[in-house]
């Protein structure tokens, strides 16, 4: 069994899986899938907005709240996708959960446009070092958070199955 193999074949693009032959309509063209993603995305964007309102960042400073949101979201998405993939093929409830919580909530919760615009604003405003460090720091720490999410989902799966697969 390949269950405990840390490098299971996760799709590189988790938003669109390879559609099996004969399936009537790709996921991204189904109204039900779009509605599930919109529902998750609404909740994710609301959570992000609530957090940025509760913990506002001063202009000209590092947007710590967006940084934290992106790192936490990256960790949770990686954990979710790995945990779901280890439980079986992407259909039925697992697919709905992936679209609702992964593509929807975590996609709406995290944001790349704010990262790029804040980094550009910092650099354009003369805080070049801060802007570069913010952008690079987010991407590098985000990669580490993603990797940690995959590793912890793997370890959780092992402990749940008692090391057997």
């Amino acid at each position, binding site marked *: 069994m390949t269950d405990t193999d840390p490098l299971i074949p996760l799709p590189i693009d988790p938003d669109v899986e390879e559609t099996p032959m004969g399936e009537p309509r790709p996921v991204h063209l189904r109204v039900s899938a779009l509605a599930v993603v919109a529902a998750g995305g*609404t909740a994710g964007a609301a959570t992000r907005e609530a957090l940025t309102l509760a913990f506002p960042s001063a202009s000209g400073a590092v947007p710590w709240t967006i940084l934290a949101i992106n790192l936490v979201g990256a960790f949770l998405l990686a954990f979710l996708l790995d945990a779901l993939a280890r439980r079986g093929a992407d259909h039925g409830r697992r697919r709905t959960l992936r679209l609702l919580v992964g593509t929807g909530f975590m996609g709406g919760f995290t944001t790349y446009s704010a990262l790029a615009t804040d980094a550009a604003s910092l650099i354009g405003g003369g805080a070049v070092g801060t802007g570069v460090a913010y952008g690079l720091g987010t991407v590098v720490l985000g990669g580490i958070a993603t990797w940690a999410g995959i590793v912890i989902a793997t370890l959780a799966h092992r402990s749940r199955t008692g090391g057997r697969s």
Partner: protein
Amino acid sequence: MTPLLFLGVAVAGGLGSACRLLLDGVIRSRTRGTTPWGTIVINLTGSFLLGLVTGVSSVHLLPEAAHLVLGAGFLGGYTTFSTASFETVRLLQERKWVAGGLNGLGVLIATTVLAGLGLWIGSIL
């Protein structure tokens, strides 16, 4: 922020997320290979548009409420950091160093340049 404006930001975020699923799927179905062009195109266009919206808003050509709904709402939900990071790590795990590096560092640089361009264009309108 009024409850109605908060709701507007949230719903716009949901619409942006659905657009992301749709566009990612369309691009994915028209490209080959493992490079996640869908997420890349989404984050490039969304970053330019947020820069533009923020620039236009900074010179008071756009009401703050519209800036929030379009920016923090729609474009925040449309673009995504978590999926981009996941795709970068998956590429690196598969030892696709160049593709992974470009998807991580290259996209960061390109989105920041495009956001800066959007800020500049928006502010001179």
